[in-house]
């Protein structure tokens, strides 16, 4: 793997007259050509500081960030803009600029002072539009677009900068699930087909686990862990990084479970989707699953209307919905 960004013994933080405040230290890793890396970690672990330092917008306390063999702080702004582009959480109100014009601003570091676009510039803009799948959006003004569409345009704009590295901060934050999946698919395509290296900070664990080629996991107060998503799950790094009360990382589902103390327990029997959602409903209501429990819930249905039977001390009661089931169990 070719590294485009090399991070050596990096400490990030803030410098002031009173002294340095170190947020994260001892980071040693690379961002390789054509990989999508997700940076995740609990709030306050220093994700933003690290992103800014890697993007060259903030000075490293110690160590270095090297972009294409040269310290990132040595680049002139225009040079850097040709190597590295950003997509931010900032909401953009570019008013009556069309989406095409916004993407065309990605050519800013290449055009002369008049901002006139050459044929080549237009070709690259078209390519970016195609890459982002934004053909249908380009003639509309930015203010007409939804959050997801707008984010797509900002990503296409970053792509039109023809960078080696694209750094994205929480680009999926305002989006619903289908839109988030779409954006991550798009980023994977950009990384794998065009050889861009993408560093994406996100709070979306599920997306990071499913979408990233590699994960940079930044726990609070320690160095950074890197690896493939699955390795970090299996070796317990995830659990350690996000450990806190009332929340548990479930290795088998790869997601966090929220629960308090278990109030009671039941044995659940059944197969398929209906049984899985019954299980979630029970956990959500603080009911533990235990095969030896005296109360039994038998899910009869697997499609169509939900139907299950609750057995306790020889009595049988039938529930026609999950809410019904919860009410029956809570009544006992």
């Amino acid at each position, binding site marked *: 793997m070719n590294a485009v960004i090399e991070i050596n013994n990096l400490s990030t933080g803030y410098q002031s007259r009173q002294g340095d405040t170190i947020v994260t230290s001892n980071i040693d890793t690379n961002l390789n050509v054509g990989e999508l890396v997700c940076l995740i970690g609990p709030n306050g672990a220093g994700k933003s500081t690290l992103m800014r330092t890697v*993007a060259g*917008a903030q000075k490293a306390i110690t160590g270095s960030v090297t972009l294409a063999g040269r310290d990132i702080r040595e680049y*002139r*702004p*225009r*040079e*850097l*803009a*040709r190597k590295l*582009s*950003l997509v*931010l959480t*900032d*909401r*953009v*109100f*570019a*008013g*009556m*600029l*069309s989406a*095409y*014009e*916004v993407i065309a*601003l*990605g050519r*800013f*570091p290449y*055009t002369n*002072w*008049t*901002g006139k676009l050459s044929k080549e510039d237009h070709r690259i803009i078209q390519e970016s539009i195609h890459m982002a799948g934004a053909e*249908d*959006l380009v*003639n*509309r003004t930015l*203010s*007409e677009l939804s959050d997801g*569409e707008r984010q797509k345009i900002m990503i296409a704009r970053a792509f039109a*900068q023809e960078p080696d590295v694209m750094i994205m901060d929480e680009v999926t934050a305002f989006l619903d699930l*289908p839109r988030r999946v779409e954006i991550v698919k798009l980023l994977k395509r950009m990384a794998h087909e065009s050889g861009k290296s993408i560093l994406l900070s996100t709070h979306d664990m599920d997306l990071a686990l499913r979408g990233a080629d590699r994960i940079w996991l930044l726990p609070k107060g320690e160095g950074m862990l890197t690896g493939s998503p699955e390795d970090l799950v299996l070796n317990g790094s995830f659990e350690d990084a996000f450990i806190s009360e009332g929340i548990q990382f479930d290795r088998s589902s790869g997601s966090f479970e929220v629960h308090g103390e278990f109030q009671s327990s039941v044995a659940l029997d059944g197969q398929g989707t209906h049984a899985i959602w019954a299980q979630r409903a029970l956990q959500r209501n603080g009911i533990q699953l235990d095969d030896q429990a005296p109360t039994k819930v038998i899910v009869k249905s697997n499609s169509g209307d939900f139907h299950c039977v609750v057995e306790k001390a020889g009595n049988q009661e039938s529930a026609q919905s999950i809410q019904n089931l919860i009410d029956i169990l809570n009544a006992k």
Partner: protein
Amino acid sequence: MAETISTTISTSKPTIQVAKFSRVILFPVLAILVMVVFMLELGIGSVPIPVSGILKVMIGAEDVDATWHTIIMELRLPRTLASLVGGAALGVAGLQLQTLFKNPLAGPWALGLTAGAQLGVALVVTAGAVIGSSFLENFEFLSNLSIVAGAMIGCVLVLMVMVAISKYVSTITLLIFGLMLGYLAQGLISVILHFTNQSQTRIYAGWNDGSFSAVYWEHFPVLIPLVIIGFAGGWWMRKPLNAMLLGENYARSLGMSVKRTRLITLGCAVLLAGPVTAYCGPILFLGLIVPHLARGLFGTSDHRILMPAVILLGALIAESADLFVHLPWEKHFLHLNAVNALLGAPVVMWVIIKNKKMRGFEL
């Protein structure tokens, strides 16, 4: 979802083509309108002068009525030119301020620049009066550089305050702040003038009304070069100003120097708004509304189109407002700012309502 998206787009697809086509038409149409109103300005008034008469005076023909010559050369032509230059200058200053402050309600008057310029002029004139004789004499004597300098220093001071507080307050709050600065300046000016004599106060009151007819030929050698520098700076900065539409963070990530762009652009806004205010007095609303009308008409926020559009539209609107003021009204004299308010206030209301609906600000 995908279907709904593609259907909505297919209907809106031709809009850009239409917009581009109309832009090609709009520039010459606006230019012709500017010329037409220009001729009307010269011809209409208490003494009507036919087009043939205007042309004769302009080419310096011999066989022309001497009164007509005086009316056009001494009164109407300088006034019309002042409205042309003033409207264009205030429009461009408004556009620059709106983009830099990311505030659709910004403008030389709304941000208090006009008030700062007024105060600066009042101070210069009063200082001159204390040293010399009357306001009138000093106004004439100092009319050129010192008054303009006073206006520009006033602008710069206000602008520094506004830039500092714009980081902490919302769009509307900033506008209210600017308007309050205006009242504050008015109050200060009144107090300053209280210590001078009555005739000065009257002359100041006349200037304070805002009018293009106060501009004389001897002012143009100062006014025109400064405004041209302001336009040139605006035209030079059109590319970075477009990037600024994405916000400062994105602009910086595109390799642009935000600091340099801010400095040059704000400097240009002062070069445009300061001298115009010094000579014409406070002209309300124009700088704020012209950029909005240009965006609406040309359907874009691209400064490469907006700069020339705002120059033409600003000239046209200022000329027309001035023409309206100078129509041969029978009974009374209309104030330029009254006309500006009739035109401007509804536009401002429209901008506010439109933006609220869009949950943010739109440039």
